[in-house]
Structure formats: structure tokens, C-alpha cells
């Protein structure tokens, strides 16, 4: 009988959540299709003016990414809560924060990473220059993990509440505003010929900050909701 190490447990939780998502692919696809649809609606609504579209591209993609990542948040812990797996997670002989981090990583791989990868294709609809597309992907890669991490705290706090789905969005969206500002700002800066380094550094700082605090806070919130 072998004991699992801390990283072994982290890997197990990520693998488990990815495996579960592969068994019900509809959930993953919903987020992605929602993102593509929302972004595609803007050129149709605003009209085909290249100058205007280029200007609003980064903002539209970021707002759509923000909304799309809210979609799967209520499901982050609710299934495990309903079938009792969450109880067993709390009884794991390792820190609950590590398990929560595993769930956050899996959530990001299923809802943040696909958005970042498909974003350049959507950017083309807005006639974004190649350099701006690269920065958009980079900014999304740095920013979407923060959305998953802050979202995990919101999902943990609203676990088991009626109407928790809407509540989590109301709770999390205001906290994501800095990510939106600096994420969209990075692309804006490149488009107007400046360097995006400062914006990207701040996004990176947000990510590290969230990485240190949010798993712990979400774990505490889960403990409270179990009582």
C-alpha cells in the first residue's frame, strides 16, 4: 500500500476532474460555444466598420471570456457536494487547500485554456493585427487562471445556497474588474504602439497573489459550508 505524496494527490484531483469532464463533454463545450457566440454577435450588432471593430476587439473578447468563465463556476463544487465526495476530500490526510488547487487547475484547463486558444481565431473577425493577437493570448493565459481562482472562492461561499448560480456571478464579477482592465489594457497598449509589459506584469502579479491566497480561502469557505 503506497502513500500518495502532496503532488500525487494534486495530480489525482486534476486527473479525476478532467476524466469526469470527458465523460460529460457537453459542459465543456457549452462554455466554449457561449464564448464564440458572444464575441461573434458584436460585429453583427455594431456593423462592419473595421476601425470601430479593431478598437473594441480586446474589450469584447475579455468581457466575453469573463462571462463564459462564470458559466461553469456554480458546478465547480456542487456535484462533489451532492454526492458526498466533498466530505471525503475533507477527510484526505493532506491539506484541503491542495485539493481545492487541483480543482481550480482542472477548472482552468476546461474553461480558461480553451478560451485562450480559440481567442486568436475570434480576433481575426475584428481585424486585429498579428502582434495584438499574440498579446491577447498571453494576457488570457495569465488572466483566466485568476478568474478560476477568484471564482473558486465565490463557488465555495455560495455552495448549497438556493440561487447560488446567479449569486456567484454577482459576487465574483466585481472582483474580476482589475483583471479585465489590465487584460484589455495589454492588447490596447500594443495596438497603440506601446509596450504591454506593465499590463502583463500586473496580470502575472494578480495570478501569483491569487495562487497564494484563494485555495486557502476557498478551503475555509468549504469547511464552513459543510457544518
Amino acid at each position, binding site marked *: 500500500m503506497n502513500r500518495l505524496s502532496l503532488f500525487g494527490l494534486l495530480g489525482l484531483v486534476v486527473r479525476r476532474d478532467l476524466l469526469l469532464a470527458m465523460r460529460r463533454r457537453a459542459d465543456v463545450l457549452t462554455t466554449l460555444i457561449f464564448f464564440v457566440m458572444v464575441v461573434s454577435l458584436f460585429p453583427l450588432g455594431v456593423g462592419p466598420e473595421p476601425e470601430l471593430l479593431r478598437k473594441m476587439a480586446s474589450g469584447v473578447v475579455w468581457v466575453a471570456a469573463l462571462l463564459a468563465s462564470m458559466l461553469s463556476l456554480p458546478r465547480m463544487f456542487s456535484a462533489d457536494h451532492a454526492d458526498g465526495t466533498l466530505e471525503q476530500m475533507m*477527510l484526505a490526510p493532506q491539506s484541503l487547500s491542495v485539493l481545492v488547487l487541483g480543482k481550480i487547475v482542472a477548472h482552468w484547463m476546461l474553461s480558461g485554456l480553451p478560451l485562450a486558444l480559440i481567442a486568436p481565431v475570434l480576433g481575426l473577425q475584428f481585424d486585429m493585427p498579428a502582434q495584438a493577437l499574440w498579446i491577447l493570448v498571453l494576457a488570457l493565459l495569465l488572466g483566466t487562471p485568476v478568474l478560476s481562482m477568484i471564482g473558486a472562492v465565490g463557488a465555495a461561499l455560495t455552495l448549497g445556497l438556493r440561487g447560488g448560480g446567479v449569486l456567484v456571478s454577482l459576487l465574483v464579477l466585481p472582483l474580476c474588474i482589475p483583471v479585465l482592465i489590465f487584460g484589455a489594457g495589454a492588447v490596447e497598449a500594443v495596438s497603440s504602439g506601446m509596450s504591454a509589459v506593465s499590463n502583463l506584469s500586473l496580470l502575472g502579479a494578480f495570478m501569483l497573489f491569487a495562487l497564494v491566497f484563494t485555495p486557502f480561502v476557498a478551503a475555509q469557505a468549504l469547511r464552513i459550508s459543510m457544518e
Partner: protein
Amino acid sequence: MQQAPLLEVKDLACERGDHRLFSGLNFALAPGELMQVQGANGSGKTTLLRTLCGFVQPVQGSVHWCGQDIGEWDDDFHAEMCYLGHLNAIKDELSALENLQMSAGLAGYTASDQQAVAALRRMGLQRREHLPVRVLSQGQRRRVALARLLIGDAHLWILDEPLTALDVGAVGLMQELIGEHLSKGGMTIFTTHQPLQVAGVQTRLLVLS
């Protein structure tokens, strides 16, 4: 031979909402002992077991493991125990084998395919190992959840209604498993509304009223 108790409950009181469920509860459990918690619906059996796990904070009193409060034990206490609640903690989308390996992982072990299959066979789930749990019956799901007890080396089993949905054969099997666990120096505390007798072991009763 009487051994020193490992689990001690001192002057425990629990509330649910504003309702006092029980108070002044004292008992101790030594290796090889079996304890059944009895009481009417709503008398606080599940709350007591959840308090022992550390999910619920008692209003008063404390739970000690090896002489130390479980709050101070932190995660190490969890390695010594195995809890099975009302909920099976299994995923419909996964097969019985995958479920068992995942729950073993959450309990901190790696279970090889052979070990997991052997545990499932012991629980009477031959040829069901690779089926999604979705297609299994309630009793079979309970068996998948119970197979977790066979993997790992937890000293203390805390079982909340382990016999729910089980047939006569499975109840017999559970009696056998608990008997083996106790003879290896384990302890079991459980609730049930069905009779459960383990050969050669005196079941201690704890009545909540």
C-alpha cells in the same frame, strides 16, 4: 486483554440549529471494540459521527484521539480513520474500479488495479468492475462505497447506516469484514436500524435520546 482507549469523547454536547441534540456525552473506544449508536430519527446519530470526523464543531466538550484533541491533530487524524456517510461519494460517470481508485487516492493511498479489483470482488461485484456506476443498483453502489474500507489501513471506521440498501448476503459480508477489522486491532463505531452481530465481539451500545 484490555487496551488503553484511543478514541475518547468527553462531555460532548451538539446542537443543530438552536435545538440541543445531546449533552454530557462520555465514552471511550479501545482497539478491538465495536460500538453501535442507537436512537430515534433526529436524535443526533449522524451529527455525533460527523462531530467525530471533525465536520461539526461541538458546542461543548471535546473528542480526543490518542489523548490529543482532534482539532490539534489536523490532517494526520484523517489518515487513521475512514468515514462512510449516508452519501456514497461515488461518481455515476466513472466505473466501479475508477471510483474505488479515486476514493483510495483521496484517502491518501495508491491502489493498483489488482488490489482494487480484489476489493470489489470481495464485495461481490464480479464482472461489474468496468461498468459505469450509473447502471448499478442502489445496493451495488453501496457495495462499491464499502469496498473503500478494504483498501487502506485506517484504525477507526465510522459508518453511518452502512447496511442501507444491502441484501442479506451483503449484511453477512459486512459482519465478517467488521469482525476481521476488529481482530486486527481496529475500532468501529456505526449506526444502523438493522441488527448487526459480529461473532465473538460484544457490541457496546450508545443510546441517544
